[in-house]
């Protein structure tokens, strides 16, 4: 059952006039105002969607400013970024803001996604919200990779080399595809140019897809930590002022973290090698991506043997692709009728293990391609796939869940009593 929120009522002649012609204030009212009813029991994990949106906004604003000075050419790219930092007014702020912002965007996204897994946010009726989310995640990864390449430092260059090299695993035409993507045999002037065009465009695609994400969400309304759908008017509050106020606190804390990093530790997430200009003749001892790709990089490197006629490298690419795509399968992998991890004690254990596993994978992805990290990465990848593709489908058949209260109100009352 959907609760009916108070409809928008224009208060004066102008807003009435405008509402008849272009109902933007009504849109605001329905999406962010008193017209959107939100469960009142959301915890702070429900603020990370908005934080991801804030991070996206920071990226677009700082990105536009950077693009006004950046020179997309293999000879000038690196120097133009240094020049921005030195000779453009507050250029260092713009550049470091964009750099740190990318990391915090992913941090917010990861927390947002893990929230979704733990509380079963992906389940009916919000599968489409989830699917669009996974699409956003993939778009964000593509954008981040392209942007990192634009710096044209050593790591940029060799990351571009490695990632585009993955295309060459496609049988027969792989090498052709790789050359087509790069516009040459190795990353070159044409590559910088096309990566810049794509990196400039994708964030606006992301912005549009975020619109779809929120639209789909509002069709059903937000879920909540109990996983029980709200039924009564007492269980919800209007977005304005309750969640607007709460979001503002979250944004404040987020900006505090963001600014502490930008002003005091701007290079904390980057590899020192990327302050060396790209040099096609010298391969860095240890090529690694930015931290938010480490778990997936570890999965890629975990496939070390040719198997069933498929070469190890192709297995690696398939495995890495699948490790992203499985997120999109979640609504169909887990068909437990109980939504929230709060009432699924066995699931909760496997979930905690899964979080630890992702950290371990990330750690392995960071290390050089040596033992014991490769083997450790193989075990960690194994649990990663097992969690999604084996444990989640089987769990509902064997798990004894806790009794789910009949309403959100009752559930929250039990929690405060306990």
């Amino acid at each position, binding site marked *: 059952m959907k609760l009916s929120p108070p409809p928008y009522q224009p208060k004066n002649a102008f807003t009435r006039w405008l509402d008849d012609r272009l109902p933007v204030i009504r849109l605001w009212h329905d999406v962010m105002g008193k017209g959107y009813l939100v469960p009142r029991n959301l915890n702070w994990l429900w603020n990370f969607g908005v934080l991801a949106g804030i991070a996206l906004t920071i990226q677009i604003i700082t990105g536009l400013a950077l693009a006004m000075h950046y020179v997309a050419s293999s000879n000038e790219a690196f120097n133009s970024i240094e020049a921005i930092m030195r000779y453009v007014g507050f250029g260092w702020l713009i550049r470091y803001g964009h750099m740190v912002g990318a990391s915090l965007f992913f941090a917010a996204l990861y927390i947002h996604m893990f929230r979704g897994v733990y509380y079963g946010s992906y389940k009916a009726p919000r599968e489409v919200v989830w699917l669009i989310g996974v699409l956003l995640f993939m778009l964000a990864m593509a954008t981040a990779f392209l942007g990192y390449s634009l710096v044209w430092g050593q790591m940029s260059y060799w990351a571009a080399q490695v990632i585009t090299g993955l295309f060459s695993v496609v049988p027969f035409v792989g090498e052709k595809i790789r050359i087509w993507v790069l516009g040459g045999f190795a990353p070159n002037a044409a590559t910088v140019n096309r990566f810049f065009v794509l990196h400039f465009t994708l964030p606006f695609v992301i912005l549009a897809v975020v619109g779809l994400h929120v639209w789909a969400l509002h069709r059903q309304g937000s879920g909540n930590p109990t996983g029980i759908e709200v039924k009564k008017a007492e269980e919800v509050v209007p977005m304005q002022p309750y969640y607007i106020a709460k979001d503002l606190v979250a944004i404040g804390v987020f900006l505090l973290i963001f600014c502490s990093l930008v*002003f005091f530790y701007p290079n904390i997430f980057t590899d020192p090698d990327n302050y060396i200009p790209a040099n096609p003749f010298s391969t860095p001892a240890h090529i690694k991506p930015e931290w938010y790709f480490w778990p997936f990089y570890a999965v890629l490197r975990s496939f070390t*043997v040719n198997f069933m006629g498929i070469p190890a490298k192709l297995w690696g690419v398939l495995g890495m692709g699948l490790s992203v795509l499985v997120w999109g399968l979640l609504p169909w992998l887990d068909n437990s009728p109980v939504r929230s991890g709060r009432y699924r004690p066995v699931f909760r254990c496997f979930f905690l293990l899964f979080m630890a596993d992702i950290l371990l994978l990330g750690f392995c992805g960071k290390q050089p391609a040596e033992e014991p990290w490769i083997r450790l990465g*193989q075990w960690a990848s194994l649990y990663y796939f097992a969690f999604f593709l084996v444990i989640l489908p089987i769990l509902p058949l064997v798990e004894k869940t806790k009794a789910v209260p009949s309403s959100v109100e009752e559930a929250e009352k039990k929690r405060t009593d306990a």
Partner: protein
Amino acid sequence: MLNLVRRIGFIRLVCLLAGLAMCFVLLWGAFQPRAKQEIDPAARYQKPLKSLKLPSDGLTGHFDKKQLRRGFTVFQAVCASCHGANQLRFQDLAEIGYSKAEIDGIRQEWINRIPDVDPNTGEALMRQPNRNDRITGPYYNPLGSQGIVTAPDLSLITKARKGGAAYVYSLLTGYESEPKEIAERYPQLKTPEGNFYNPYFKGLHIAMPVALLSENQVNYEDGTKASTDQMAKDVTAFLAWSAEPELENRHRIGIGVIAFLLVATGLSVVCCYRIWRKL
């Protein structure tokens, strides 16, 4: 069995099989024997960095302009015969206290000439660098190194190496004679002809000879005694500045921004609390 299939459902069964296949491939890989890994013997002789304190350290640190000038003196007299600092322009030296006249003196004597065209005759010529030309080294090539190993540019070096300024300082003061043990136990580690033993450099052998050789190798105009350690510290401080000239400014503004955000966030907490309390 059929019952189980029915209970799991077709889609989940397909996913389950795919998942088991993935796990099997990974297991197969995990139990493959590994090629024996050679532990790089050089790692045993690599030394942890010396600690270095610079006036610009910490959130409220400041660049010591006198020291930066001394550092540039060392850079100009010693390092510049091989290295450049090409993210800097000559005019940037004004920021560390050089006057216009001094900068003109420096650029006119600089080791590099800039390829240009004579505006009257159209002939190619090599001219003195202008104030807004990059401070390049003798091996500068705007098209990159093209595969030739040359002395790296130093303007970003403290950001481009793990350990930053401490690394540069350790390296400059870290030359030693090769331990006898190496020749006996690891003949393959013997320092090659034309290289030098330095346990702070990755791989132990560096092509750069000892740069800071002796006391008073440079003349400090402010009367500071130019010991090798002092010169190393000063030039490192200069390079830290050249990599992050905005550092002081960034920290100062940052403290203001954080203070503002603390207040603003505090207000939003109060606001949020008062709104929710009414429920």
